[in-house]
């Protein structure tokens, strides 16, 4: 039986270092190639030795697909392609291709330059890696090779995020990457058509959460920021350089404009400017509002938001600072946090998900004292707020996507095991489909029932159409006669005559004959006649054509019925019955009717 195998190398019952291997129809595909934020050792990259112990990966993988530019989805890409070795195609959307190298470079700088790690990928490796990238457009079907094709759908989440449909023959898998079913200030909602994949691999970050409407969230966020700023406090918003940051920028920018606020808003790192540039460029990937108004004013050209300098952190007075990275695990956001943590007037707003082990995760759980490097402790006095701005689909959104795509099987990744369990139950209950949640390295096998395409000759089809009923009923299967020819790796259904012709065979007819003897009495003659009338009436009713030939035989379709009296026994009448193989059903029915049906018919009379 054909089967699809899915093995998560990362993100199986876990968040971070997304990397999922899929083998479908003899093709091997790697979906995402991310790194883990929580680890600084070997565990931060997926374990590629699962694929092969030595040598390059090229011969084992047909293609690599990157869903979006977040590092937990693309962070390990240069490592895999350049250090482990992979030369095949890497697919990603245009915005992802543009922004991904910026983030990778930033990541490399932090790891190598700041932490002084060696044996890490270099800038050149990132460049080489990006040369292998093939860009994707939305809804464009790309043929990787003759059989394997992929197609990208809009996923919301961040600029350029895509869901990918992988298709080999009639088997297909959809991988969602990260997606968002509710539109926000700068991106639209994820959308997919009713593609009915065999497996839908979905993220499940918020498997057990149903979120409030975004409007309430936005209002809460603005209110909190506004109040703190009016009080003279400083607001720190740790973000990832791209994605949420832009949404919050737009939100604050419009709010500042509307309320005529004066407090400065800063955005840390020069990286952002470069990235904002791409946001301005890829307007087609944003939401309706931005797409429609960019002619008058591009929403990403901020008026109130300025670049941040490290010295500003000590400035007096209120300010709002967006700083990277989003989970407070390193970099500028951590530095600013250290400076501001002691003052209760200040506030930190965590707008997204924090992986276990990061400082963000700790303070969100209410930890008041933090152990820093060098055995220092940091007291957390500032207010900690959590605003769920993270653009992942919540439980309802996931269900909505399942309803849109109508998959046959479901597979959950990118979430915590405990939460997945809940969602898994729900999915199985609501949709009555199988749901899997493999751990890292665990393989899920799904047996598919692919339809086998067969070429049918047009003549045969037309003939069959003409034979039965006005129109074929699409809901019901219909039987037809034909010959299946399997030749040269292709299947064809042709009419028997054509098949014979092609194979150079003669046609043989198969006929069944049988004799039914009656004693010639008045009575039997009566029976024969009356029964033949009965039979005739029944046949006419069923719509069979009946012909009377001049020599006294009766033809029902191809069945010949002949009454003859034998010379030896004049008292008996013999009924000869002959039918062809094609009319087997009718023939055998008639013979039983004539043999056995008569006495019962007699008794009923």
């Amino acid at each position, binding site marked *: 039986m054909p089967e699809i195998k899915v093995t998560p190398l990362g993100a199986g019952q876990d968040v971070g270092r997304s990397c999922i291997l899929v083998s479908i129809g003899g093709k091997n595909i790697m979906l995402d190639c991310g790194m883990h934020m929580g680890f600084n050792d070997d565990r931060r990259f997926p374990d590629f030795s699962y694929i092969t112990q030595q040598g390059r990966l090229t011969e084992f993988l047909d293609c690599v697909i990157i869903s979006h530019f977040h590092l937990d989805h693309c962070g390990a890409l240069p490592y895999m392609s350049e250090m482990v070795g992979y030369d095949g195609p890497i697919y990603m959307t245009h915005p992802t291709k543009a922004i991904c190298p910026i983030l990778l470079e930033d990541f490399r700088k932090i790891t190598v330059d700041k932490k002084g790690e060696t044996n890490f990928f270099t800038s050149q490796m990132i460049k080489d890696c990006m040369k292998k990238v093939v860009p994707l457009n939305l809804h464009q079907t790309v043929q990787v090779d003759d059989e394997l094709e992929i197609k990208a759908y809009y996923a919301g989440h961040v600029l350029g995020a895509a869901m990918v449909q992988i298709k080999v023959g009639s088997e297909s898998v959809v991988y969602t990457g990260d997606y968002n079913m509710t539109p926000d200030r700068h991106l639209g909602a994820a959308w997919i058509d009713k593609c009915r994949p065999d497996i839908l691999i979905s993220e499940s970050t918020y498997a057990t959460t149903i979120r409030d*409407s975004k409007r309430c969230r*936005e*209002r809460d966020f603005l209110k909190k920021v506004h109040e703190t700023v009016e009080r003279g406090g400083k607001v720190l918003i740790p973000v990832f350089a791209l994605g949420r940051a832009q949404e919050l920028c737009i939100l604050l920018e419009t709010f500042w404009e509307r*309320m*005529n606020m004066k407090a400065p808003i800063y955005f840390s790192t020069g990286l952002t400017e470069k990235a904002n540039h791409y946001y301005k460029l890829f307007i087609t990937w944003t939401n*309706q509002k931005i797409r429609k108004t960019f002619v008058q004013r591009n929403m990403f050209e901020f008026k109130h938001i300025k670049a941040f300098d490290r010295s500003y952190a000590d400035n007096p007075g209120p300010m709002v600072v967006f700083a990277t990275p989003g989970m407070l695990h390193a970099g500028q956001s951590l530095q600013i946090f250290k400076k501001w943590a002691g003052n209760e007037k200040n506030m930190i707003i965590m707008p997204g998900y924090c992986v276990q082990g990061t400082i963000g995760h700790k303070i969100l759980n209410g930890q008041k004292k933090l152990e820093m490097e060098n055995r220092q402790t940091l007291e957390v006095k500032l207010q*900690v707020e959590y605003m769920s701005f993270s653009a992942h689909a919540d*439980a309802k959104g996931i269900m909505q996507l399942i309803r849109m795509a109508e998959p046959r099987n479901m597979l959950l990744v990118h979430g915590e095991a405990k939460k997945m369990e*809940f969602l898994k*139950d729900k999915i199985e209950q609501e949709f009555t489909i199988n749901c899997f949640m493999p751990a890292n390295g665990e393989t899920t096998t799904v047996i598919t029932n692919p339809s086998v395409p067969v070429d049918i000759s047009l003549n045969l089809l037309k003939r069959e159409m003409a034979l039965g009923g006005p129109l074929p009923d699409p809901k019901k299967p219909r039987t037809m006669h034909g010959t299946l020819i399997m030749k040269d790796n292709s299947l064809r259904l042709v009419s028997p005559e054509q098949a014979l012709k092609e194979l150079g065979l003669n046609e043989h007819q198969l006929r069944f004959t049988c004799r039914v003897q009656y004693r010639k009495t008045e009575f039997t003659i009566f029976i024969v006649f009356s029964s033949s009338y009965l039979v005739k009436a029944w046949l006419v009713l069923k719509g069979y054509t009946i012909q009377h030939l001049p020599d006294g035989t009766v033809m029902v379709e191809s069945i010949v019925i002949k009454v003859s009296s034998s010379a030896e026994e004049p008292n008996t009448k013999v009924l000869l019955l002959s039918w062809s193989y094609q009319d087997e059903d009718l023939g055998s029915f008639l013979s039983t009717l004539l043999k056995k049906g008569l006495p019962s018919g007699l008794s009923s009379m």
Partner: protein
Amino acid sequence: MAAHLKKRVYEEFSKVVQLPQEEAPAKKLRLTKPSKSAALHIDLCKASNPTDALQYLLHFARSSVEAESVEGVVRILLEHYYKEQDNSVRLKIASLIGLLSKTQNFNPESILDDTLNTFNTEKSHQVLAQLLDTLLVIGTQLPESLIVRHRLIEVAYKHLSDTYFGVRNKCLQLLGCLGNVDTPLNKDGQGLVPAVIGDAQSLISDYFADQDPRVRTAAIKAMLQLHERGLKIQQTIYDQACQLLCDDYEQVRSAAVQMVWVLSQLYPESIVPIPSSNEQVRLVDDSFGKISHMVSDGSWVVRVQAAKTLGNMLQVSPHFLEQTLDKKLMSDLRRKRTAHERAKELYASGEFSSGRKWADDAPKEKVDTSAVNLIASGACGAFVHGLEDEMYEVRIAAVDALSALAQSSASFAEKCLDFLVDMFNDEIEEVRLQSIHVLRQISTNITLREDQLDTVLAVLEDSSRDIREALHELLCFTNVSTKECIQLALLELLKNLTKYPTDRNSVWKCLKFLGCRHPTLVLPLVPELLSTHPYFHTPEPDMDDPAYIAVLVLVFNAAQSCPTMTALFSDHTFRHYTYLRDSLSHLVPPLRAPGVSGIEGSGSVESAQLFLQQSLSRISTIHNLQDPGAQDLLNFTIRDLQRLGELQTELAGAADFSATYLRCQLLLTKALQEKLWTMAVPLCLKHNAMATAAAKQMLEETYKLEFLYSGLENRQVATIHHVRLQAKALQLVLTARTRRGLFVVELPHLQESFVGKLLDLSPKLSACKPGELVKILQTTLRQSGFLNLQLPKQVQRASATIIEPTGESDNPLRFTSGLVVALDIDATLEHVQDPHNTVKVQVLYPDGQSHVIQPKPGDFRSPGPHRHRLITQVYLSHSAWTEACQIEVRLLLAYSSSRLCKAVWSDSSTEGLQPAEGATEGTIPFGKPVKVFIMPKPARR
């Protein structure tokens, strides 16, 4: 000899009259038509290949064909049809036949047989589809003929089983448009109709399961068409329709939503079972649930359709309705309260939302995992989804639906409040505006809580004027619950006022209503608002401060129904009251208070009405205007009426109308005074000038009477026309008197209907020569009595007020000469019919130059019944001036010349602008002009 002359004059007249009626060119065109079909024939014969033939046909399609020759053309076309091998040409012919059958005054029945015959030979599916389309065109034009319909349906039925989707599509369309709607009729024509055709409904419903989505859509649409034509659709197809809601194709789903809705309206009360349980629900509830489900469909077209449809399902039970706003929040499997619920609780506990406490939205109770229903079943949260949709079209549809449902259910209105208030923060202005409008519509049912009001008021800072004004309008109708709310609202409105001073009028009006509605809530605030102090005298506030006026408007309006409030006023407040009562009488109500002198004696509308009637009836006693005292009476009455109009705004229209009418009469009387007419012409030049001016003014006044007032009946219009006739007669007579020599030459130009008719009617006159005629006219005119005026019930005078520019600014608008400067104009128009076409802006420069600008239709907004608002920009430009000077901007009301007998008058006066006396021909200035300082500077080199 004299008789001969008279005859010649008469002949001259009649000749002149006939001239404009001649329309020779039209006939010429007609003559060419019959040859056209022949030309087509030749063309088609010449065509050697299908491409050429197609070209000829395309060319032919562009020209129009007369009704008489259609049949011939169709025959030629059909002749070629049978000869033609190429499908595309046949298809074009078929479509041409359809087009031709639409020709006016042509009865398509005559070509029906020929068209039907083509079906026998046609093999191409595309052509068949086109032929069916042609039949549809023919059929829709002959809706009465039963036989035709039956024949067409027969054809449709025969081709329903075609393999090509287009043919099936068209057949279904045909069935939908022509299928039998009423069964009894079917019995009459039974001989003609096979039984099958009678039941178009079941036939169509068979195609709900067709393999082609386009055919499925067509089937549903055909069914809807049948419904529109009055057929009662059977309930049996409900299940089928519901299944179609899950179709793979959006157009099918969209149509199915409509179908389900139609059924829910037809059988709202019938009971349907819920699958997989024993329960049963009403059909309308069931379909409501199903359509709600479609609000989260994958295609936005379907979502819009579904959201719109929800608004039309008013019979749904409240239980289901409230589910549409339901959302159960969950965080890590713990039940979480929504922000709305939290806000409500905080309000209930009397604590203002701090929003600062860590985890004040932390999930509390643990959720029973089996009870959480993730997939929204039924109506659950339909509007929550709809209002958060990606496409603003869906959001607007959802807001509209909310409005419709909330208007029918007060409890639902209460519930949807939070959601609507949330929509005020939408990113698209249209949505914000729409939700503000909706909230206004339902605001009679609801009371805003403080936190809700807070969100509402935050929008006052919006930079869009439309939004702010909509919000003011909303606040006019809002009920609030506490005095803090009033204070908050006042504070925000004052903030708004300082930020956007142009909103002054709107803010004041808003506060007026706010005060009227909540007198008891304002009462405790009064000392604070007026900053009075029990012991100390506080400084008297500046009377010109708009903010102070705003506060006073609020307080005075509240005091109107709260008598104790006046006791809290200080002396200067009373003084300010009398001042404001006079200057802003529309905002400040009359107060009964000890400090206020009792000048508020103006009686009720009824008494004013009575007075108006009495004045008019007094006038009607005048029989001859030459009577002594008649003129005095007129003078006094006019004065009375004018004053009445000022006092009673409700009757201003009627009073003004009557006064203007009477003034016309007065003018006429004065112009016809006996002694002057007996004088020799050269002696009374002065008088002539006076009479000419009077005639001219009368004419102007009649145009004003006719077009400036709305609500006139035919009778009044006739009266006005009568006056105009008199005025013109007067002009004629005057011209005749002053310029004898020119008269004969001029007479044809003065050939108004008046003289012509006079001649027609009175045979005696027809024999007169011009001089006599004038004399007769003169005496008739002088003898004409006073025509009494009947007032219609409602007369409203169109009026316009330019709010901006105010004309107060001393700073000239500077711009470089030769370039343009845009001047913002903001005006309110009342009782103007069809302002898009009639209202124009005129700019008068000091040098007499003038421009008339037609505003764009988009510049007009309609904030209320009979009220329009014009917000536009006019572009000014001029050559350089040495110093700043004022230009005049005014509004003009153009009257359509079609309603006038313009024949002669428009000849003599130049079309367009005559700024001399300020009156432009064809337009009436209305509203006060505003002066604007401008200063075009010479361009710097």
